[in-house]
């Protein structure tokens, strides 16, 4: 399994399914918030991830990634931050805005 296939199977497909299920409950504000959070995640995690790789904590098998590397980190990893924020954000929004049963 490549990194792209992992992203598709474990992040993209569940996110797409979740969005389809909750399509009437996703406000424009939530979309804007998730977009802002994704940007923040890229800015805050990108440099840290590069530090992690430079300190030899983890590395990537060249056969598992497409080959586009920004700094020391493959493009797929930056996509991962955005997808994780989206998945967790959707779950959080659903849980935090659900009304209690009377």
């Amino acid at each position, binding site marked *: *399994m490549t*990194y792209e296939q992992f992203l598709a199977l474990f992040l993209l497909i569940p996110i797409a399914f979740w969005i389809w299920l909750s399509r009437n409950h996703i406000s424009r*504000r939530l979309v804007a*918030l998730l977009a802002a959070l994704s940007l923040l995640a890229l800015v805050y995690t990108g440099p840290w991830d590069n530090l*992690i790789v430079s*300190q030899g904590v983890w590395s990537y098998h060249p056969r598992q990634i497409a080959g586009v590397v920004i700094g020391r980190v493959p493009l797929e990893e930056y996509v991962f931050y955005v997808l994780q924020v989206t998945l*967790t954000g959707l779950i959080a929004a659903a849980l*935090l*805005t659900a*009304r209690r049963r009377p």
Partner: protein
Amino acid sequence: MFGHATYLTLELVWAAPVLIVQWAAGNRILWTCRVRVALAILVPTIYLSCADAVALANGIWLLHRNRILGFMIGNVPVEETIFFLLTNAMVVQTIALAANHPAFGVLRPRTTRAPDNETGV
């Protein structure tokens, strides 16, 4: 940099400032919806840790033995689960604070009920 504690140290030092600021600024809001916040953090953390087990088994992330403590849950180093816990906490607490902050407004599109009614969740 820190031998076997490198991953753990770097993730804790990296996430702590954000989490501390969120709790310092929004402790009242976060405490009010603590059960939902905890659930919203734990569910994706467990899910991503399971997905991580598959990714690690496929060699997508190659974690280096001399940079982790060596405590494993299956084939997942405990630092990985802590990473998901910390990152999901940052995301969920931001959503919780935004959802209840008057300046941002509630996220739920079709209700006028005040968020303070949601006590004891």
